[in-house]
C-alpha cells in the first residue's frame, strides 16, 4: 500500500518580502518527500485559500515576519470556515514571540515554528499531524 504524499502550501501572506525562511522550509519539506507549492510573495488571504483549494493541499504553512501574525491567522481561519476547508492542517513560522504561541493555537493553528526551529522538527510535526482524509 502506498502512503499518500503530503501536499503542502507554503504561503507568504501580506506585504512582507522576507522569504529566506519560507524558501528554506519549502526545500526541506520537498527533500523530506512532500509535494510543496510555494505561493510567492505578497499574497492576500483570499489568494492563499484559492491556491489551497485549487491544489487540494493537506497543509498550509504561513511565513510571517512582521508581527501581524494574529490578525493574519484570524482572517485565514475565518475564511477557512467560510470555505469549509477545516480539514487542512495549518502551521505558522517566522518572527513569533513565545507569548503569542498559545493564542495562535487557540485560533486553530496546529503548530508554531519561530525562526531558529530545527527543520527536522517542522518535518516531523507535519508527518505526525497532517489530517488524513
Amino acid at each position, binding site marked *: 500500500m502506498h502512503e499518500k504524499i503530503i501536499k503542502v502550501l507554503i504561503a507568504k501572506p501580506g*506585504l512582507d518580502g522576507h522569504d*529566506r525562511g519560507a524558501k528554506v522550509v519549502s*526545500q526541506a519539506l520537498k527533500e523530506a518527500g512532500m509535494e510543496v507549492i510555494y505561493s510567492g510573495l505578497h499574497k492576500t488571504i483570499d489568494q492563499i485559500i484559492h491556491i489551497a483549494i485549487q491544489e487540494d493541499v493537506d497543509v498550509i504553512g504561513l511565513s510571517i515576519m512582521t508581527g*501581524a501574525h494574529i490578525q493574519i491567522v484570524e482572517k485565514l481561519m475565518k475564511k477557512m470556515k467560510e470555505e469549509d476547508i477545516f480539514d487542512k492542517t495549518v502551521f505558522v513560522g517566522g518572527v513569533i514571540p*513565545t507569548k503569542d504561541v498559545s493564542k495562535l493555537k487557540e485560533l486553530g493553528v496546529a503548530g508554531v515554528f519561530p525562526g*531558529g526551529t530545527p*527543520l*527536522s522538527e517542522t518535518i516531523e510535526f507535519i508527518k505526525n499531524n497532517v489530517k488524513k482524509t
Partner: protein
Amino acid sequence: MAVARYIKDEKDRILDVILESGIHVKPSYTPDDLNRIGFDYEKDVADPGQYPFTRGIHPLGYRSRAWTTRQYTGFGSPEETNERFKLMISHGQTGLNVAFDLPTQMGYDSDHPMSEGEVGRVGMAVDTLRDFEIAFKDIQMDKVGAGLTINAVASIVLAMYQAVGEKYGYDPKTISATPQNDILKEMVGRGAWIFPVEPAVKLIGDTIEYSMTVMPRTNPVSVCGYHIRESGATPSQEIAYAILIANAYIDNVLARGYDIDAFVGRFSFNLNVFGNMWEQVAKFRAARKLWARNLKEKYNVKNQQNLFLRGLFGGGGYGLTKAQPENNIMRGAYYALVAALSGAQTTALCSYDEAYTIPTPHSALLSLRTLQILMDETGLRDTVDPLAGSYFIETLTKEMENKIEEEMEKIEKYGGMIKAVSNGYIQKLVARQAYEVEKGLETGELLKVGVNIYKEGESKEVELHEYNYESAERQIKALKQVKSRRSQRDVARTLKELETVTKEGRNVMPCLVECCKAYVTLGEMTDIFRQEFSEFQEPALF
C-alpha cells in the same frame, strides 16, 4: 558553497578551514604567500586614499573623521518618528536612517485593504507630504542627512523629501538624502518590489538623472549587497552582485547621454558584516579595489574621487539569533569591529531584539553605544587600515578579489544581471545556499552559540516593541483629513501630468515633486505607475 567548513580530527584539532567563498585558510602565512600571489604593494594595495583604494578612500581614515552612525529608526506615526529622530540625535547619532512601514514600501495608502494591520508596524507610515512635514519638523535638514529605506517607490519618497525640504525653507541643493533605491536586490532578497525589472530600473535612472542637477548632495542609489547576503549569498557573491547591479543602473543613465563622472560619485553601498571576520575584512578591502577598477577600466571614470566605494558596512541581521538574545549584543560588538577594521564610512548595527521584533528605544540605544565605545575608547581612530601588510590579510584580500571576479564572470556568462534576476537564476542559487546553511546548523557543521552549542532551555522573553493600533487609526484619520482639505483641482492636474509623463517615458521626478506639493497620496502616485508598468512576476523557484 555557502557554509564555511572546518575539517577536524577526532581530537578537535583543525585540519583545514574552507571559508564560505571557497577559500582555504592555512595554519600560518609567511612572506612566501605574498610571493605566491605576486603581491605588489603599489598595484594591489597602495597607500590609503590612493588608487585602487584597498586601504580606504581617505588618506587619514578615521583620523580625519570618525564614521557616521546611522541606526535604523522610524515607528508608527510621523510624530513618534520625529521624537525618535530627536532622541537619537541628542544621543550623538550623526545621521538619520528612516524605516518605513510595509504599506509605504509597497505603495499603498494607510486606508488600503492591503495595509490592514501593517500601518506603522515596521516603520513610519507615509501617505502625503503632511507626514514628512511632521517627521522632519525641527530637524536641520542641511546638517543631518537622511537614509531612506525605500526602493520600489524611492522616486516618490525622494520627491517628497525635496518637497518637505523646500517647505521648511531649504534649498534642495543643500539637503542630502540617501534613498536605498536598489530594486534589483529587492527582487533577489528583500521582496519589496512592485513593478517589472525594466520600468523599475528606469525609475532609478530618473532619480539619478534628476539628483545630478536639482539635489546634488543626494546619494540617489545605495546598492545593497546586504540583503542578497542575508538571503543566502556568500561574501564573494554579495560583492559581485552588488557591483553588477550598480553597473545596471549606470548603464541606464549612460544610455541617456550623460558623462559617467557627472553622477557615479554619488553611488553608495550597503554591505553586510556577519560571518567569518577575516573573510569580511578581506571582502571590503577587495570590494573597494574592484569597484574602483570596474569604474576606471570598464567605464573610463576620470575623477579620482568618483572611484570611491563609499558605504554603510554594518547590520549583520542574519548572524543574530533568537536563542539567548542578549548574546546578540556581543555579536554586534564584533560586527562593529569588523566594520571599523574594514574602514566603513557609515555604520549601524542590528539590535539584539531584532530576531523578535523591531528594536525598542533601549536596544537601539545599546547598538549606538556599542559603536561609540568602539570608536572612542579602543583606539580604532589611531591609524588607517591597521591590518594592512599582514601576510594573511593581504593574501586573503587577493584571493577574495579573484573569487569575486569569478562570481561576476558567471553572471556575465549567463547573460548579465538583469537577465539573471528576471529569470530567477540568482534567487534560485541563493535560496539553495540558504538551505545548505540551515542544514549545516542542523548537522552541527556550522556552530552557533545558543542554537546548536552551549544551549540553554527556554529563552527568556525580551521586551517587545508593541504595535500601536490607535496610532494606525489616527494615521488613517489624518489621511482622510488631508484628502478633504487639499485642492482637488491641483490633485487632478498633477496626477494627469504624471500619467502623461509616465506614458511618454520622460523623467517622472519633476512631476512627482509637484504631486507631493499638491498632497497627492503615495498610493495615488503609485497607482499611476502600476497602471502603466503592471507588476513584477516572480519567477518560479521550485
